[in-house]
């Protein structure tokens, strides 16, 4: 047997799990080979050392830290559970049902104080959403150009990238001019309506 074969058998030999027919060959090699017999000695010593490996005490506050981290996550949800005995799914479902009822057309048409309040807040929310959409639309141009250029870069179409960027510059200039026109109209304190402003811009251009 050579060193490689014997070393593969060492764990079984050390545990006395090795086949009897192989014991002679392994022991003969171990008598002659210092490196393999040394490996066996270290192997056996390791098992004894590992079995007496000291256990550490965790830091005294580790348990508190774990408790704090785990219970903090659900503290808001657990509030109702702890103080009112209502599990989270129950009150979340109830809140969802209430919201649906408040937004239902039948409720909003009623001539009651809660219906009027719900209508008022619904209108406010709608106006806010429209304003936000308007702002987002202003950025739409940049986003669309960025997306187109990215797709062209992926396709490695350099000429079309240049065209796309030139188109963007033209669109941007036009858009800036229109914005400045609107600004002039606003600064003049004009009481033009939106339609009037559009007509004004068209006439000017």
């Amino acid at each position, binding site marked *: 047997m050579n060193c490689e074969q014997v*070393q593969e058998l*060492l*764990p*079984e030999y050390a545990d006395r799990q090795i086949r009897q027919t192989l014991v002679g060959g392994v022991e003969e090699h171990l008598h002659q080979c210092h*490196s393999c017999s*040394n*490996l066996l000695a*270290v*192997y056996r010593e*390791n*098992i004894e*050392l*590992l*079995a*007496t*490996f*000291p*256990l*550490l*005490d*965790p*830091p005294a506050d*580790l*348990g508190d*830290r*774990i*408790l704090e*981290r*785990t*219970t903090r996550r659900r503290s808001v949800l*657990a509030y109702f*559970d*702890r103080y009112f005995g209502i599990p989270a799914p129950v009150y979340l479902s109830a809140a969802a049902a209430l919201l649906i009822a408040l937004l239902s057309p039948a409720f909003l048409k009623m001539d009651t104080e809660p219906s009027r309040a719900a209508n008022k807040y619904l209108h406010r929310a709608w106006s806010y959403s429209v304003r936000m959409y308007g702002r987002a639309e202003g950025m739409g141009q940049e986003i669309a150009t960025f997306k187109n250029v990215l797709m062209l870069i992926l396709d490695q179409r350099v000429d079309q990238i240049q065209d796309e960027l030139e188109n963007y510059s033209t669109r941007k200039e036009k858009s800036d001019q229109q914005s400045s026109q609107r600004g002039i109209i606003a600064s003049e304190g004009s009481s033009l309506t939106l339609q009037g402003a559009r007509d004004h811009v068209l006439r000017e251009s």
Partner: protein
Amino acid sequence: MTEDASNDRNLVRRCLKRDEDAWNMLIRKHNRRVYNLCYQFCGSTGTAEDLTQDVFLKVYGALDRYNFEMEFPTWLMAVARNLCIDHYRQHKREKVVDIEDASHIAAPQGGSPLAQLERREAHHRIHSALVKVTEDLRMAVVLRDIQGYSYDEISAITGVPIGTVKSRINRGRLELARVLVGEHTAVGKGVEA
């Protein structure tokens, strides 16, 4: 079923009913075991603390999926084992693992002060070599030779057949011995040179 295992299952049932005291009791009962597994595997007390917290955080989030036919400590150690190996794989390219000085570890009881010091140094040396062993083999050696789990338990923790467990333990022990012998030889050569 042992009384201890039954007690753990009752605590888990109470946790599922949002009983914070039961969860606190489970943490106090098992955090030392998890912390030591993490430390023995990664060789750093700081990382062991972070990993122990992550283990309990993960277990807490998955309590409703706990299989009551499995022993709670086995499940806990399976989660710990997975997180330790994931953490090692994510960070092994970032830095060379360096075992902390063993001076903070309590000396083994019994024997002369010199014998205790030698034993402590031997533990430090073997731990330094252990963290150089391949992760799956290292985990098998830690679970068997340090933590003292049976083959069946290691099979449940690691999710591999018993034959594979035995093979990993044998290969891990052999790799550990080779690391130590190689280091010893290298030191010897350095002295000779």
